[in-house]
């Protein structure tokens, strides 16, 4: 039962991803070793650092002697944290992170995802007792939520049997709020949603096109059945700051 996924550089395929569970650690560096992420670059120390999954988040240790590592939130408009050399177990609060290692003039990166981040409703109602909580928690500020909202939009607008938007249509729909959106970004977010919502993998035999379609269909029916997206949520598709510019 993993809680953190490490995505090696230039590796979008799930095969290359490394999943670790809470309490497990993974070292990264130039050295090739079992249970480690190898970064083949002369400017990287043999053991450059360590990632430890801790509950639903993760910790970063910087084992280099003089390089500061930066962890960026790719969706955070420049939001980042710095981890100084020698720092052990610095907590990283982002669901998506890009770890940036300076190495002899180059900037090397790899990604870390923490899909088990929990987001709960703040409406805690009176009277004591443990709360029964939905099993899915989506962060409404993330891009994957905008993609899910765009996917569900036709049906949320009261057409229960409307065909699902094609990826090109999704790109058009998302562009006002997300100017840099691309087809691959949409595909990436659909895949991430399937991971985040733990969709049971469909039959691998289906052709790739049908697989994406089946995934979209499953995501939408799940989201609508469990009210993960409401009609009110479609505001995430509106251009950012549109109220101010009017």
């Amino acid at each position, binding site marked *: 039962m993993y809680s953190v996924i490490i995505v090696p550089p230039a590796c979008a395929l799930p095969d290359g991803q490394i999943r670790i569970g809470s309490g497990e650690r993974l070292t990264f560096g130039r050295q090739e070793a079992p249970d480690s992420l190898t970064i083949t670059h002369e400017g990287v120390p043999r053991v450059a650092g360590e990632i430890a999954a801790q509950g639903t988040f993760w910790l970063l240790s910087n084992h280099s002697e003089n390089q500061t590592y930066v962890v960026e939130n790719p969706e955070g408009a420049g939001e980042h944290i710095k981890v100084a050399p020698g720092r052990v177990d610095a907590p990283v609060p982002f669901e998506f992170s890009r770890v940036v290692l300076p190495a002899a003039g180059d900037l090397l990166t790899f990604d870390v995802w923490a899909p088990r981040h929990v987001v709960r409703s703040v409406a805690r109602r*009176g009277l004591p007792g443990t709360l029964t909580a939905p*099993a899915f928690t989506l962060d409404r500020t993330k891009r994957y939520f905008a993609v899910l909202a765009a996917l569900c939009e036709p049906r949320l607008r009261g057409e229960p049997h409307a065909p699902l938007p094609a990826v090109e249509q999704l790109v058009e729909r998302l562009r006002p709020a997300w100017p840099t959106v691309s087809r691959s970004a949409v595909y990436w977010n659909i895949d991430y949603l399937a991971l985040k919502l733990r969709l*049971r993998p469909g039959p691998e035999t289906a052709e790739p096109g049908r697989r994406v379609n089946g995934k979209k269909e499953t995501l939408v029916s*799940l989201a609508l059945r*469990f*009210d993960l997206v409401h009609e009110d949520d479609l505001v995430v598709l509106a251009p950012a700051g549109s109220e101010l510019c009017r």
Partner: protein
Amino acid sequence: MPVSGAPHAVAVPWGYRVGRWEVREPIASGAFATVYAAKLVGAAEPDLPRRAALKFLPTGTRTPRQLRHLRELAEREVEFLGRLRSPRLIRMYDTLVVDDPEHPELDGATVLVLERAEGSLDAVPAPDEPGPLLAQICEGLAQLHRAGWVHGDLKPANVLLMKDGSVRLADFGMAAEMEGTHAYAPAFATPDYTPPELLWPEVDERGTRVRPSADVWAFGVLAHVVLTGSHPLPGGTTEARSDAATRYARGVAELRLSPELPDAWREIVEACLSRTHAGRIGTETLLRRVAAAAGVPRSRGPRAWRRHPLVAAVLATVTLATAGLSAATVAAHRSATSPDGTPVYAALPTGSAPVGVDGEAVFRYHRCPVDTLCFFSEYNGNGLMCMWTDDDPDWQSGTHTCPWAATAPVRSVLNNISGDRGLGGVAYYRGTHFVPAGADRNRTAQRTGCTGVNQMGNLAGTYAPLSHKLVSSCSYQPSLWGVLSSLW
């Protein structure tokens, strides 16, 4: 997301009328529903209690929290309570839908009229001796599992304590009927009571796959909490405890139960909190071990409460016809009282309210202790009770007597004798020393009646037996004497 500022999921004003009920104070509020105390307005009705608990689920089309999954949860709970009834599950008297356009936030809400409890296990102090309480909770789970359902959200807040100290399981919005080895539950959970394999489960359009072993895990957590006041997994927050559960399940952490846990319970809790669902103790074995640890006499196999109102109706018809000679009625009686392999809880046809001989009285068979035979002066286990653990050749003399039966009829019976003893039923007679007397002699079986182990039912109520004996089977071999005397 619409966030309501109200303290309750559904706010209903004091004095609000729904059907025959007047709403009083709120009793409990969960994530989706609010439960209010209510009293019956107007004349008393035999089918309805004076006090009830009304559970409001905001299922209306114009409620602020108009949510699809709420309708699904409400439908699930209504279906469950309409189909299953047993002494350890909260009783539902009726369901209503609010029709009140003046209150759009309430209009269309589903209202379940439920048995009124004193409080839930997390709101009232647990009794000094929690063993019997845990045994009753376990009985409730066993009743559910035998019926082919999974509760899906067992926790102290969903265990209700009644005025007489007995326990009822409640809140069946997550309950799911088994399809083969697992059921599909809506994807909601209380993480502190969720087994590790369901903390991050795979889902598909139908929801999460759950097994009865999920309830067994929840029972283990609940028992630990009740017995020691602390959670079995370490951590100060739900998230930390969930994390500890997943580490434990991966085998990288050991289970360290509280030293306060009595030894007899330690093994039980450990068996419930097995790392994988396959390693967890089965419900029937759990029930036996909990009964032993709780100091309740050992019992084995599907116990009583396998109550099917239709069976009771058949039984009543048959016993009403005691004076008749119809072999068909006798055959019906046999099939009604001998174990025939049907599920413990037969499903009731949807929409047909279970109607007992006397309308809809409260069932009080639960008073009958384990491994005991009980006769009651009123229908459905109500009224005075006489109980035995063995044969009695004469109810009105000897060391053990049943004084009320000397002047009043027996109206219901529960054969709660343990299946361990290999006794298939109890035969009872109008004469002493197991001798047929009066109308018994007109019956082919030459006895007043016979009730199989784990069976209960109402009797026609015109007589009281004078003796009974435990028999290996309620089947009988018609003797020549029997046939001849029945023709008399």
